[in-house]
């Protein structure tokens, strides 16, 4: 009898599915765990809604939403780079909604909403930049880079790391901003020139940032805030926003199409853009720029007053066809180059 | 034939077994009378063990019917048949004590643990293994293990008891003793026993009837004496003990008898349905009478061996070498001696080639 009861209990625990009902929300989160946790508990505290939060990388959440398209499990996809959210929007995996705070948002956050037909909106941003290991550069007596074109210096041979745009959204953002400021052909010529200095194109977007912090490479391409976080953790990393101009990689959020808890999802969507919710970024130890102009940037944000921020042409680069064309060209002209 | 209390008749009708295209047992009929001990005898690969396993329910026949004690058991599983099997390897469960091994079948049949244990102890005592119940099988000698295997099978009081080469792992002396014990046990309990062996002396010693098998079919079935004295063909004659197979010619047939020419001599024998012309003659070594040269078939002793109870001779004759045994150990013949051979009345038979 006791064994039967145990089996029944096990079946009951095992078969508990995603949260459902009036006061529940299934949140897919692609940000750092602390941040996801803060948002989940913050929303719970603010509204009394039970939040079931799952944290995975951007690509994993996109893959999951796509796999679950016929029977959505998640309600809101929060964080993750804008281009992935745009893919989801393009493929009809998410549904349009106008957030209450839309008019208070930074232009880059609003542009995303417009470009996606209202299916996704920016909620935080990271500045694309160059990071370098100060100890290594000093030891090799190399000058720190400040501009994109500095990366072509012969002295940096084998010292630069950038992730592979095929697998990394970060690298794809870098590719697009280069195309945007330099023009497509010039951008590819630049990448070909830099290729001689690149020691590897790892598949993970965060890998170059880690590598520069641990002195595995001298220079990396990534996010200014990412490098700043390494500096905060005690690693000898400095960062620069390239002088020719750079862009913000936008973190976005979307409501999953056919969400089981649509009302709660919309409530979360509105809440996440309030200054109170945006302030949780800093509480979670993140350095992302807030999308809501009424929210202050987190303390410790690197000084970006000198940075020339160019808004990303999301209407162009968010399209799958354009993305596939650029990636194919990258493959042809960079990926296949001998090392 | 006395019908024992537990002995059930085993009836095989058209039973056959094939693996793919290979026939392990060709369709055959066989009736084993209740309370008798029947031996399946034959060389390796003749199908005798497959036949036994079909009776036990470990193999499903490809065709035919099996009934035990009048009940059709063709599709019944091993546990549903009133049979027990003693394995060649004994198949004692190595992780159970001897007592647990013997009680296993009783508990399987639904008997309480305590009662089963008492019965098991009694069964062990009946095979002379008192006090060894708590040992593990690996701590017993080969003969003791064999007795445990028999006790384990007997304790279920089956109507049919099956033995699959039970003595092949024992030494010669122990083998002789165990086979007598098995025969004695069978007679005492009146149980039907089917016994597989490839050892003809074992078969002769224990059987009521012997079924000789060859190439997946029955070569001949009969009492030990029938098989020994009237083998149906060359194979059976050679397999049942020693036999000189000599070419002969049936010169004439007269009633039940035939006039048979062997070399220069002629004898009269039952023709056993064989036609006139070339034939084979099976002569038991002890049926060769060795006399002085000039009488009977002339021959010369090529080799003589002293075997203690008898002398063994190989004698060259015009029709080939003849193997003979003689009880006359006191006056051995030397190699090279000239002799004359005669044949006894018994032990000489015409066989199918």
């Amino acid at each position, binding site marked *: 009898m006791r064994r039967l009861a145990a089996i029944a209990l096990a079946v009951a625990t095992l*078969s508990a599915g995603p949260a459902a009902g009036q006061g529940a929300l299934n949140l897919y989160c692609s940000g750092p765990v602390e941040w996801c946790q803060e948002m989940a508990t913050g929303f719970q505290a603010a509204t009394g809604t039970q939040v079931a939060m799952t944290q995975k990388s951007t690509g994993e959440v996109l893959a999951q939403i796509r796999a679950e398209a016929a029977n959505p499990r998640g309600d809101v996809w929060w964080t993750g780079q804008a281009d992935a959210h745009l893919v989801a929007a393009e493929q009809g995996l998410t549904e349009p909604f106008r957030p209450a705070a839309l008019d208070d948002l930074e232009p880059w956050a609003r542009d995303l909403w417009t470009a996606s037909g209202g299916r996704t909106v920016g909620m935080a941003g990271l500045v694309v930049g160059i990071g370098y290991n100060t100890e290594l550069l000093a030891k090799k007596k190399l000058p720190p880079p400040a501009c994109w074109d500095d990366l072509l210096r012969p002295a940096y041979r084998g010292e630069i790391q950038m992730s592979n745009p095929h697998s990394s959204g970060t690298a794809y953002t870098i590719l697009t901003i280069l195309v945007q400021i330099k023009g497509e052909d010039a951008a590819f010529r630049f990448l070909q020139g830099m290729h001689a200095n690149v020691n590897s194109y790892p598949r993970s977007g965060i890998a170059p940032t880690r590598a520069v912090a641990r002195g*595995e490479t001298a220079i990396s391409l990534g996010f200014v805030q990412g490098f700043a976080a390494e500096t905060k953790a005690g690693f000898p990393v400095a960062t620069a926003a390239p002088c020719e101009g750079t862009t913000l990689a936008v973190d976005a959020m979307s409501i999953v199409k056919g969400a089981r808890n649509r009302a709660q999802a919309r409530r979360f969507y509105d809440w996440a853009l309030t200054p109170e919710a945006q302030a949780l970024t800093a509480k979670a130890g993140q350095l992302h720029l807030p999308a809501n102009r009424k929210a202050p940037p987190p303390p410790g944000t690197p000084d970006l007053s000198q940075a020339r921020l160019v808004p990303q042409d999301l209407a162009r680069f968010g399209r799958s066809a354009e993305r596939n064309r650029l990636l194919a060209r990258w493959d042809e002209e960079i990926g296949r180059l*001998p090392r | 034939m006395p019908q024992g209390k537990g002995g059930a008749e085993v009836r095989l009708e058209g039973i056959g077994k094939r693996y793919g295209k290979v026939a392990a047992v060709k369709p055959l009929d066989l009736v084993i009378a209740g309370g008798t001990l029947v031996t399946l005898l034959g060389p390796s690969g003749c*199908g005798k063990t497959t036949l036994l396993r079909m009776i036990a329910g470990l193999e499903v026949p490809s065709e035919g019917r099996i009934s035990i004690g009048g009940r059709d058991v063709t599709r019944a599983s091993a546990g549903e048949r009133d049979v027990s099997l003693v394995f060649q390897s004994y*198949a004692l469960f190595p992780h159970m004590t001897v007592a647990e091994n013997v009680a296993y079948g009783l508990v*399987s049949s639904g008997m309480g643990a305590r009662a089963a244990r008492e019965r098991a102890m009694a069964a062990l005592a009946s095979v002379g293994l008192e006090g060894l119940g708590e040992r593990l099988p690996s701590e017993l000698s080969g003969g003791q293990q064999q007795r445990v295997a028999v006790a384990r099978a007997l304790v279920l009081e089956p109507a049919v008891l099956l033995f699959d080469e039970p003595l092949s792992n024992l030494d010669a002396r122990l083998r002789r003793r165990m086979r007598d014990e098995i025969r004695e046990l069978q007679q005492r309990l009146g149980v039907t026993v089917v016994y597989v062996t490839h050892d003809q002396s074992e078969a002769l010693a224990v059987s009521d009837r012997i079924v000789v098998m060859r190439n997946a079919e029955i070569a001949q079935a009969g009492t030990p004496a029938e098989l020994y004295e009237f083998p149906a063909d060359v194979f059976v004659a050679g397999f049942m003990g020693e036999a000189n197979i000599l070419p002969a010619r049936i010169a004439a047939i007269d009633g039940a008898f035939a006039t048979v020419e062997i070399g220069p001599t002629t004898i009269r024998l039952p023709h056993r349905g064989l036609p006139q012309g070339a034939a084979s003659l099976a002569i038991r070594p002890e049926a060769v009478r060795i006399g002085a040269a000039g009488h009977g078939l002339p021959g010369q002793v090529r080799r003589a061996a002293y075997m203690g109870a008898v002398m063994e001779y190989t004698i060259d004759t015009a029709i080939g070498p003849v193997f003979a045994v003689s009880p006359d150990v006191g006056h051995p013949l030397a190699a090279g001696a000239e002799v004359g051979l005669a044949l006894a009345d018994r032990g000489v038979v015409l066989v199918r080639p």
Partner: protein
Amino acid sequence: MQLWWWVALAGAVLLPWHMQQDGLRAGSLLALFQDDPEAASAAAQAVRHGRFWFWPVLAALAIGAPAALLPGLGRERRGGILVAAGTIGILAVVAQGFAIGIRGWTAPWLEALFGPIEDRQFGIGIGGAVALVGFLFQVTDGLARQGAFKGDRFTAGAVGLLAGSILVFTFWPMATILSQAFGPTAEHGPLLAFAERVADRKVWGLACVTSARSCGVAWNTLVLAVSTATVATALGLAFALIATRTSFPARRAMRLLTVLPIITPPFVIGLGLILIFGRSGVVNQMVEALTGAQLGRWIYGAQGVWLAQVFSFTPTAFLVLIGVVEGISPTMEEASRTLRASPMRTFRTVSLPLMRPGLANAWLVVFVESLADFGNPIVLGGSFGVLSTEIFFAVVGAQADFGRAAMLALVLLGFALAAFFLQRAVLGRRSYVSMSGKGDGGLPATLPRPVAIAAFSIAVPWAILTAIVYAMALAGAFVKVWGRDWTPTLDHFARAFAITTAPDGGLILSGLAWNSLGTTVTLAAIAAPITAALGMLASWVLSRQRFAGRFALEFALMLTFAVPGTVIGVAYILTYNIPPLEITGTGIILVACFVFRNMPVGVRSGMAAMSQLDRSLDEASATLRASTFRTLRRVVMPLLKPAILTALVYSFVRAMTTVSAVIFLVSARHEMATVFIINRVINGDYGISIAYSAALIVLMVAAIGLIQLLVGSRRLGRRAAAPVAIPAGGRV
């Protein structure tokens, strides 16, 4: 009378047919009179809610009713009825499940045939599952009654259970994902799209032979796997020889190595190697300080992945080989020595050839492990891509191309299968049996001097290096900033496993890791016994029963072992996210994944053990009136204890350390420890991830000890070396 008919009846009439949103409660089990159709039983839905598609299910029950209710029926006739009713029942359940999904009819032709419906249904729940099981066993029971499987209902049921579960949990998801390889693209139809994917230059390119460009990932993977397997097997052999053939004092400690690879959470070796050989690693800094030479970043790329894999898989090769080396009969070597062969010649011409099957086996296992390895290439690969990482990024990367992932998975599967068949072909018919049932009195030959010297000079430095890699990696748990600030601290453990007191005096598990740890241990503890039980059942069926389709079953059972976890994870989510079997987001999917991924090892060890068990033991039990189940429980299982132990430990530990398969399957309610660790590693939070890994290692060692205690050892008497049952060789 007929138990399984009643089970099917209960599933269709009594229990709620569909999966219940908020899990199952005792109160909702009686679903006959539920007003909500979603909570009602199939019968209630058909009768009260007009869901006509359940009538065939009920019809199947009606057809089977005579077999259960009429006692006078003949054996074969009853069997025929059961087979018919069960088959119709299974077809009815499956057909209705696939025909009507959460958006009504699932295919246009269905709508055209039956007209539109304003209804939908979710995945099947307890009722549907119970009914399906009932119908399945009706079929197997019926078949047995008609004389199949020697008339044994248990065997028939076991085969049915295995075949059914393999079909549902292996074949179906694999077919789902592999069909994606034929998914049409914008330009091409299915076949051309597949051809285009397969012929991809990035997969098969050979540019690296003639130039400095990189080759296709398929070649990368193949070359890496072959070299890893070869070197790891050689190293494993050196360890095995030292452990068994020398009096080396630390050889007992070396056995510890065998457990290391299975209890090591992913990434640990890669991280340790970076700390030692990385550009800023200990070795580089020492070399630079001593000679001024800069070693650079050589650890990243093919060499680094290879090194990490050799570190990771040498213990596996050792594990396989030690059994083989121990199993070589000393008599053979003694025979060789008495025939005047020198020790070296004996080793070369007798011992080594006798080890050949073991060497081939070890090579194959490492080869497949290397193919499926994901952790090492991702940490150390740099630009160097292999199939497993390429599949992962094809799914989650910027390309998000399931078709490409499926095609790459096919290539990977092809390699694994090719190696499997190659091994069979090479070892083929030659006999390498050197263990007879008879006790073997001889002493193993000592190693010839040159071999001993070679073995020691390779194995000892390697063992030390392995120890250092682990030490370096695990040190990360006890220092402030790993690789930078080596101040000792226990902060990471505190963050992961803190326990605080609530104001009311109760204890709160406030550490970050508690939640995922609890889930992981629970799910692993549920999965392990199921894995072991199914694995033992499968090995028994495969080695003791003859039936049509036996080889297919064996092959399907082994299939999941060769498929990389990422593929399995995606396949599962694609398959089980939609009705009829909607178990995504539940713990069931994780347990199913663990069970069917880890079962092959249990099956293999079970079959190996079974081949040493004389078949006459089973037969003796059968003739002693024992049912098949009793034979399994009382005779076979006690003698298989070592294999059961292996299966239990392996499945428990693997359930705790798997990452690639479960990363897609975890949900908010069911977070796994490894996924937690990986996310921390990706975020660069090494301290807490390594602290967690260390805790997991300790936990797993404790669990292994506990399992060993629970299962116990088999007793075979004081003379354990001499098995009682001498295999019956010349059975006629």
